[in-house]
């Protein structure tokens, strides 16, 4: 039941769901949520390896913690950008933010 592969499959699935969310959502917050999901997928992967493979489980846990911290920082920044974008463009629809068009 809880062999390594199932966990890997689940984290891959989580990651892909997050990916779908990022690719097709049109408003930034949706994308942010999907990114959180992807990060969790990765975290799950680490913990799975930690549980089944690594010589000492501490390493995986430390990395998981680091990723959580990172995700928190990323969410903070993401949200403030969304706010700034909203104030400037009065909408957070990603397709309008095309100032970088070549």
């Amino acid at each position: 039941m809880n062999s390594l592969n199932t966990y890997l499959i689940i984290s891959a699935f989580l990651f892909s769901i997050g990916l779908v969310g990022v690719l097709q959502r049109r408003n930034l917050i949706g994308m942010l949520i999907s990114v959180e999901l992807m990060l969790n997928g990765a975290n799950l992967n680490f913990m799975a390896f930690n549980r089944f493979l690594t010589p000492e489980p501490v390493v995986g846990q430390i990395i998981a913690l680091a990723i959580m911290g990172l995700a928190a920082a990323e969410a903070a920044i993401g949200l403030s950008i969304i706010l700034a974008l909203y104030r400037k463009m009065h909408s957070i629809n990603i397709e309008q933010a095309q100032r970088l068009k070549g």
Partner: protein
Amino acid sequence: MDTSSSLTALAQAAFWITIGFTITGACIAVFARNILYNVLGLALALTGVAGIYLFLGSLFIALMQLLIYVGAICIAIVFAIMLSRPLHLDTPPRPMPKVVMAVAASAVFFIGLAGVALKTKWVPAIERSTDYSVVTIGHMFLTRYELVFEVISLVLLVAIIGAIITAGFSRRLSS
């Protein structure tokens, strides 16, 4: 004997239930039209993941997960939703080709990932200690992996300052 087998069956069932929770939460978070439902879906998925961590044997990480993700990040997102008021904005219809492409790309990616995961022969390390206690985590964090600790704190600091500035400046501009 059957109690242990029923116990394992119970654990098995609980395991699949948590996975079910995570998956449904993820789907709600991604496919729901209303942004609020997305956030709630996300919270559900994250608690599901915390449950899985339990099954992976590290209680501390599960709790931290609940604390950081569900507690802090989802709340922050809710704040963002309130501030940017997307609700009453018109949500233009989602172009079908974009969704199809997204799903197709992710499907390809998933199959690739799953294939890699299944195909490689994972070799567990020779001698493995099963010490999951928080003490060792704390000890190791401050001795051998001290750099991770420093870096993550620095990142958080920078993130906070960055958030204040980007949010703060834009307010002065728009007000």
